[in-house]
């Protein structure tokens, strides 16, 4: 091979590898910065596909790639929800996998990686016992720091005095905890209804 080809190949390959490493480091840093421990990769199998089945806990995708939230599109026909990006490996939602953890999974509790889905960043903890998945728990997501770039719709405190002082206009209906038909009679809504006739 000519010298120029050798040098070109070495330089190009090195550049690509460095870029790839950097990209990976950035992904890792983002994971750590958002306050969540990176997922543990110990334990179960290569990531198979997982599907929500109504009555049982969802199958798990394995180490490193995090766990798929039961992907909405897989158990419901149509209906609004688009499939977020499930954890790597659980991509082919329609392929069913039995809820029992892949054989050889060691009992324990595993925390998946942070996974970005349409619905936000998700992290799930999975408990495996006796070779079966016994619990799938979504973890806290109050990552105020990383969400700061988005318009914050966080609920914040408000004083009653700030509210009541401005309520002069009249209103036509009242929303409250569901009243029974008996309870209706003592609800404000019934007063409104009478006034409205």
């Amino acid at each position: 091979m000519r010298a120029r080809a050798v040098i070109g190949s070495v330089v190009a390959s090195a550049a690509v590898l460095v870029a790839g490493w950097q990209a990976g480091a950035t992904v890792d840093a983002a994971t750590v910065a958002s306050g969540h421990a990176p997922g543990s990769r110990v334990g179960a199998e290569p990531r198979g596909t997982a599907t929500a089945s109504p009555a049982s806990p969802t199958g798990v995708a394995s180490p490193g790639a995090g766990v798929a939230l039961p992907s909405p599109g897989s158990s419901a026909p149509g209906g609004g929800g688009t499939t977020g990006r499930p954890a790597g490996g659980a991509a082919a939602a329609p392929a069913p996998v039995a809820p029992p953890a892949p054989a050889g999974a060691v009992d324990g509790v595993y925390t998946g990686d942070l996974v970005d889905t349409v619905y936000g960043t998700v992290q799930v903890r999975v408990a495996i016992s006796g070779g079966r998945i016994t619990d799938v728990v979504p973890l806290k997501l109050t990552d105020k720091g990383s969400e700061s770039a988005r318009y914050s719709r966080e609920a914040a405190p408000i004083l009653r005095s700030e509210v009541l002082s401005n309520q002069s206009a009249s209103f036509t209906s009242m929303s409250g905890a569901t009243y029974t038909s008996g309870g209706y009679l003592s609800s404000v809504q019934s007063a409104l209804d009478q006034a409205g006739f």
Partner: protein
Amino acid sequence: MRNTFTTMGTVASLEVPREHMALVADVRELFERSESRFSLYRDDSELSLIASGRATLAESSAELRDAYASALEWRSLTGGSFTPHRPDGVIDLNGLVKARAIAESGALLQAGGCLDFTINVGGDILTGGMAPRAVPWRTGITDPAHAGDRNAAPLCSFPMSVHRAIATSGSAERGDHIWLTRSESAPEFVQVSVLADDIETADVLATAIIAAGYDFLSRATANWDIDVLTVDRAGELLVTPGLGGMLRTAA
């Protein structure tokens, strides 16, 4: 014109313009059909038959399966905070069915040409368009401290100009569709009101926030286009910026 009728164990209040009063009969029939299919208080409803084992899910009607599928989807979306599964294993769709019936009624009214309406079924409200006076429908939220007093002032009131639907869940009411998840400790919120563009979303999320508490509140506001007002056990309020802005200015 206002019309009230009893359905689903509570009372529905309907406000429609005089010329569309004929549509009220259709709305009542819609609720009756829904109740006969889904009510767990009627032994012969389809859902009761399934609960008692006399019928199977596989043989059920498309509407039931559709409702169930929708409930499961919400279960996924809320990470289990909203679930149609009672601890005793019975499938209870009550929480979702009421909202879906309200939504269908709204569609029915709009299809019939009625664009100004308010439907309030047991505290879940859906509005359509502007009031006859070209002013948005204005709604109040009950003050849980004064529940049961029909002359009590509301906690607040505001125009339904940004969101069309509002649903309020209270922990004082242990409706069949609220099952506290994870721990059975006292709920953080005693009342949660959610404003959204459709009543189903508002109802489900209100239920889920009451059940799961502050954790889910954060997630709900981040991932859905809603406004929320919550009341905790101490009577303190939390409100999202959009609604908060409306409440602080004279509106």
